């Protein structure tokens, strides 16, 4: 055991070192390993939870977005429909107005025509009666005497016939 002596081996020092190690082991376990490993574990759990939550949120967001999209499409459809209807209504109204106006115009024209016709007939009648008078007067002058009523009329009528 000369070699051990040469290295200065002392059982007490060996023991001291072993004791040192155990003291250090205890201290580090208490103050370093335990709290640090605990907090590492805690953080790991927290991160896992957060990731899970984030996934959930993402999913919900997507759902909401889809819902909004669907609603927007629906609304757009409705607006389009309303617009179409409004256009149709307007066209119908336009057509109706046109037809009415046409009818009105036709009515006015017809009325005008009727009026004109009536006037003309009236004028003709008047003219006729005047002419009869003229004929009677002329006959009186020519014949010189007044025929009886019957003859008179016959003559007048004949005259008119000839005239016309």
């Amino acid at each position, binding site marked *: 055991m000369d070699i051990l002596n040469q290295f200065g081996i*002392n059982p007490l*020092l*060996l023991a*001291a*070192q072993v004791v040192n*190690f155990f003291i250090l082991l205890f201290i580090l376990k208490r103050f*370093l390993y335990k*709290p*640090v490993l605990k907090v590492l574990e805690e953080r790991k759990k927290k991160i896992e939870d957060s990731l899970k939550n984030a996934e959930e949120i993402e999913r919900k967001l997507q759902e909401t977005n889809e819902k909004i999209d669907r609603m927007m499409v629906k609304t757009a459809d409705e607006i389009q429909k309303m617009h179409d209807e409004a256009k149709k209504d307007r066209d119908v109204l336009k057509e109706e107005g046109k037809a009415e106006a046409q009818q009105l115009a036709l009515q006015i024209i017809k009325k005008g025509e009727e009026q004109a016709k009536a006037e003309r007939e009236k004028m003709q009648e008047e003219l006729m009666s005047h002419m009869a008078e003229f004929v009677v007067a002329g006959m009186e002058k020519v014949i010189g005497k007044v025929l009886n009523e019957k003859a008179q009329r016959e003559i007048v009528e004949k005259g008119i016939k000839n005239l016309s």
Partner: protein
Amino acid sequence: MEHGIVLKPEILGYFKSLPITNTLLVSWMAMAVLTIVSIIATWRVKIIPSGLQNFAEAVIDWGYSTVEGLSGKKTKVFFPLVMTFFLFILTVNWMGLLPGFGTITYKGEPLFRSVNSDLNMTLGLALLSAFLTHFFAVKYLGIKNYLLKWVALNPIFLFVGILEIISEFTKIVSLSFRLFGNIFAGEVVLSTVSGIFAFVVPLPFYFLEIIVGFVQAAVFAMLTLVFMILLSEKHEAH
């Protein structure tokens, strides 16, 4: 630098019959440093880390995942031991590089000396590592299975068992002398180079020693871990 190349640690004084060597003093200092740092780092543990807590978490997480990758279910038991080996050896190795080591003297002896340049310290750690390894083997296998690892009726396996017992002793020797040799050699190199020219020239060797300090700490811790795992695993039936 006349103290640079001495195998024995210098004795500063005696506490009753316990010799207080400069390496023992430094190992206490290293313990104090580790204690203070860990208390500060975990003073108010916050879920959102900052500063020293961040650093401690990074180190612990790295260590834990490394141990977990190798030992699986036994991580909870092995991790504190392996990590303590690693942190302690790393701290004393790097502390040994600080200025003042070997140069500040007390009663004619250097006050500080790199802990692992004293075989007492490395042998203490190696013995402890071996003891813990066998302790866990007994714990996980039961005393019967544990003994069956070494003794067998088959003469060939009996011989193998004897070889294995010898290898257990060589493990202790290799663990302790590897650490001691590396750090002691580093000390010698540093003091020699500093003796030749004290400015700038030793710098590359300091970088080298920083790496060596880390590597040796990692090697010691990893070997301890591997031995523990191997020995506490169920023996395959032959």
